[in-house]
């Protein structure tokens, strides 16, 4: 009898204590979140700007890249969802664009790339944002591991024919790595497609940003 009597009370007490602790822990997390939110935003923006500024040489543009963005979604870019592109201007004139593209056919999954293209269609630089390639083999696409990714700089659809956008093993113009051809050829093909996208939409891209500084959806 006493067990039955005391049970609801103990359950109620436990529930209240548990709820109390939930409230306290949530309050602490919320407090820290409030305190760090601006700093996190700042760090994220800085990391993004850092990555973007590595692609375009300093002095080749004079605007804040994060303020001139477009949201792009095109099969040639290979992204799973619409991704922002960043427009660079020098003295009000289009200077370059940085596209986000995805190589879907890496050795282990997608390779996400940042591709900088100058207004006249030359590659300004390519960087890997994210990849899952084999350490020591495929990860030479990172700047920290090898200089390979720099070999894109200066290439364009004009100075490199369409059938030369392959690794040497496949009769192309780009080096492969010892032990890894799938990774570099996936990157080469993705860059090639991004250039084709840029070629098709060049003027449209810059015009849309000049007319409105806010991000907007392109068809």
């Amino acid at each position, binding site marked *: 009898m006493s067990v039955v009597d005391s049970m609801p009370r103990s359950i109620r007490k436990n529930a209240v204590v548990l709820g109390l602790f939930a409230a306290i822990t949530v309050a602490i997390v919320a407090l820290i979140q409030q305190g760090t939110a601006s700093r996190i935003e700042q760090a*994220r923006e800085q990391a993004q700007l850092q990555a973007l500024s590595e692609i375009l040489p300093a002095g080749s543009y004079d605007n804040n890249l994060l303020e001139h963005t477009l949201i792009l979604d095109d099969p040639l870019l290979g992204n799973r969802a619409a991704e922002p592109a960043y427009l660079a201007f020098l003295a009000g004139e289009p200077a370059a664009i940085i596209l986000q593209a995805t190589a879907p056919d890496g050795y282990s999954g997608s390779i996400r790339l940042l591709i900088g293209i100058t207004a006249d269609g030359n590659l300004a630089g390519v960087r890997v944002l994210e990849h899952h390639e084999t350490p020591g083999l495929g990860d030479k696409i990172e700047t920290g591991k090898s200089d390979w990714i720099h070999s894109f700089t200066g290439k364009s659809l004009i100075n490199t024919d369409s059938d030369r956008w392959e690794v040497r093993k496949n009769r192309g113009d780009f080096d492969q790595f010892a032990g890894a051809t799938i990774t570099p050829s996936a990157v080469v093909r993705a860059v090639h497609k991004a250039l084709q996208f840029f070629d098709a939409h060049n003027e449209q891209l810059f015009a849309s940003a000049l007319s409105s500084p806010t991000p907007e959806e392109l068809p």
Partner: protein
Amino acid sequence: MSVNYRELTINGLWKNNPGLVQLLGLCPLMGTSNSTVNALGLGIATLLVLACSNAAVSMIRNAVTPAIRLPVFVMIIAALTTCIELLMQAYTYQLYMILGVFIPLITTNCIILGRAEAFAAKNNVLSSAYDGFIMGLGFALVLLAIGIVRELLGTGMLFANMHLLLGPIATNWTWVVFENYQGFLLAILPPGAFLVMGLLIALKNHIDDRVLARKPVEVVTSAAADRRVRVTGVVE
């Protein structure tokens, strides 16, 4: 109940080391020990969560009934981990990006709930915080040792990218130990973690054996409770 701090220290760092003896938290130990900076980053994060959670659990140990003890502990640990995650995101953003999912996974690291249950729930705040700190240190040191060995064998370098954790002063800390090193891929891949870990455990047991062989034989009556938390080594 008086607490022997010397014994706590020996237990955390050597005799009952969470990494080498209890074999707890192996997932992050294997996953993030491929370079010194990753190992140190996660080691420090785990240490902080462990010390704080032990202190917090000890503080509230008399306020919660056994029925809701575990959910409350887990809630405290999860909250602390989230706080550490937010702080790392704010101050060491690039390292946060590299360590990725392993930071939130600190919540599920069995060492932390293990120490909360085994120690903090029964001892006062100060000694619990110390136990958490020293156990965390033991874990961090093993992580760091594996990280150093794997980075050295795998890349021929040490302390690369330390600025991700320690800021600009550490920018030039990269120490190329072997010039023209071709790299030893196995050390960086996951199997390398198991191999280095196994060798470390073997080394520890070897040292223990040597120490034991030198000592005059002592008859120790075993504590049954000890058995449960020991996985490798000789159960005393």
